[in-house]
């Protein structure tokens, strides 16, 4: 398993071959119950405490479809510009593996609920690439295996495995792209951008939190190469369960380099599944892919067909939220920022916190400044996502309000945020406890200003002579004397006033 894989450089691979990708993304829906039974889907429950005869596949148990699961599937289909089937069935996908106690997975085969759509995705430089969608279908998740006795919890070398079926039966929507052709050297980037856009879309629809690190969204990367100029696809490999955006890009890149090495040496690609390894960014061989017919799909006899009425579909279409790409473009224009700035906000995961902060009353520029500055730094240092920080958008909005009112300056505001993050309470509580208030007592300020002028006669003379810019040094002296708790703008005003100089 540890034999090194031959690779050619990415540039050389792309000089000779065109990559073709197919991406399969599984999204775990955020429904309260499983797809075919009323067991809870709550995370973190005791092993096997959320199972019933249906999801354990006990004899005689009959599944019933979760209405919200179907509704979510239709919403996803519509948001992906798909056609919605007027009539479709579930199918049994038969295989023997202990992660499904029924010995089949209830899925959809030749009649997916949604098909023929597309998703426009935006690359880092703003270029928009259209990814065609083949289908989106409903199915169920499998149980969770723990492999015991092996070296590192892997199947290899394990003496036996333990199964927890709490996850078995949780609704999944599998979204499959058509072959993505023509992305060339940008293929790995397109793969990443697609998965990210899909994640944003799923979240905007409110059908799942789509947290990849929690397995709520997982991506399989199918990749093949064909010689430049050819139009017949090569044999593909399928890298399973790639669970972060970065890994999606790396897995695609690695497979391009690996395929090119195999093909370049006159070899053939084996159609197989492969595993991606986060630590090395490489893939290793899994199992030889069973042909589709080996699953012996047949229509699920225990579930009647799903026939979404046109009226209901149109009602759901009308209720779709503004889609992420449209929303981003609108906000970018409203805020008057560049595509690169917006990209940075997205990469930092700051868009939703910023919007929520603005909704809570902050102005756009201040909301952006705090989330992309102080808060991003803090998140980075603590290794948290922005929305995991111990401060709410409403609290950030309150801080910006205190600054706007002149109660705090930026320096003090940073200390307030630091206090909130450290669990010292709300912004107002931190202000009180730490005694952080801008010195707005004019008498005290005037005294400090006079002291600064008296202590720096040369600078004062320059200002009297019209060199207004020199006031900065005196402002600094006042700020120092007030331990940063003065309103710098007011200090400057007072200095200029005292010295008879006018601004600008």
């Amino acid at each position, binding site marked *: 398993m540890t034999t090194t894989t031959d690779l050619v450089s990415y540039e050389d691979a792309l000089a000779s071959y065109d990559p073709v990708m197919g991406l399969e993304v599984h999204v775990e829906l955020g429904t309260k119950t499983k797809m075919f039974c009323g067991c809870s889907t709550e995370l973190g429950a005791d092993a096997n405490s959320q199972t019933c005869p249906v999801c354990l596949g006990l004899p005689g148990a009959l599944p019933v479809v979760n209405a919200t*699961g179907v509704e979510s599937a239709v919403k996803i289909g519509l948001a992906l510009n798909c056609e919605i089937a007027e009539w479709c069935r579930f199918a049994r996908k038969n295989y023997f593996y*202990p992660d499904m106690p029924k010995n089949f997975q209830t899925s959809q085969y030749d009649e997916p609920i949604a098909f023929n759509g597309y998703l426009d995705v935006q690359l880092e430089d703003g270029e928009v690439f259209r990814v065609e969608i083949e289908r989106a279908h409903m199915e169920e998740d499998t149980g969770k295996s723990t492999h015991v006795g092996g070296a590192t919890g892997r199947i290899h070398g394990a003496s036996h495995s333990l199964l927890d079926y709490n996850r078995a039966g949780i609704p999944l929507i599998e979204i499959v792209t058509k072959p993505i052709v023509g992305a060339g050297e940008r293929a790995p980037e397109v793969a990443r951008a697609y998965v990210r856009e899909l994640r944003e879309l799923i979240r905007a629809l409110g059908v799942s939190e789509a947290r990849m690190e929690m397995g709520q969204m997982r991506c399989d990367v199918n990749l093949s190469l064909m010689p430049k100029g050819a139009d017949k696809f090569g044999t593909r490999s399928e890298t399973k369960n790639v669970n972060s955006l970065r890994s999606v890009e790396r897995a695609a890149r690695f497979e391009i380099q690996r395929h090119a090495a195999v093909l370049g040496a006159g070899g053939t690609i084996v159609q197989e599944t492969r595993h991606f390894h986060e630590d090395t960014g490489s893939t290793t061989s899994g199992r030889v892919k069973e042909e589709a017919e080996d699953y012996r799909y047949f229509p699920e006899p225990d579930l009647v067909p799903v026939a979404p009425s046109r009226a209901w579909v149109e009602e759901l279409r009308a209720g779709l939220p503004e889609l992420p790409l449209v929303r981003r473009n609108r906000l970018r224009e409203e805020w008057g920022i560049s595509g690169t700035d917006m990209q940075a906000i997205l990469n930092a995961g700051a868009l939703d916190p910023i919007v929520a902060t603005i909704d809570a009353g902050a102005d756009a520029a201040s909301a952006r400044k705090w989330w992309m500055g102080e808060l991003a730094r803090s998140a980075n240092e603590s290794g948290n996502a922005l929305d995991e920080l111990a401060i709410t958008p409403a609290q950030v909005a309150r801080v910006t309000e205190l600054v706007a009112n002149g109660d705090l300056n930026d320096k003090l505001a940073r200390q307030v945020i630091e206090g909130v993050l450290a669990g010292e309470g709300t912004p107002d509580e931190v202000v009180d406890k730490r005694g952080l208030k801008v010195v707005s007592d004019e008498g005290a300020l005037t005294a400090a200003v006079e002291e600064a002028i008296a202590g720096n006669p040369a600078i004062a003379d320059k200002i009297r002579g019209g060199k207004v810019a020199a006031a900065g040094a005196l402002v600094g002296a006042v700020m120092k004397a007030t331990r940063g708790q003065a309103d710098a703008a007011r200090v400057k005003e007072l200095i200029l006033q005292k010295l008879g100089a006018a601004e600008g």
Partner: protein
Amino acid sequence: MPGITREEVAHLARLARLELKPEELDHFAGQLDDIIGAVARVSEVADQDVPPTSHPLPLTNVMRPDEVRPSLTPEQALSSAPAQEQQRFKVPQILGEE
């Protein structure tokens, strides 16, 4: 639809995890052939305008609201498991992967 071969029976047996003796392969090949032949006669009378039936009932959209219902206790769930460990179903070594 004649001509189910013993290789096809062996393949199906492998997928179904059934262990068949060589003489059974021939036996079942013949039987499967007869069954498929009988079913194939349906397509002689069913024309394009007769859609295939998967469900005898004229029902669609039988759904339930997304409301949690009580599950089994872990003890109940595991009560007929041949083996268990750490409140989980214990299964033999899984072969054939990695």
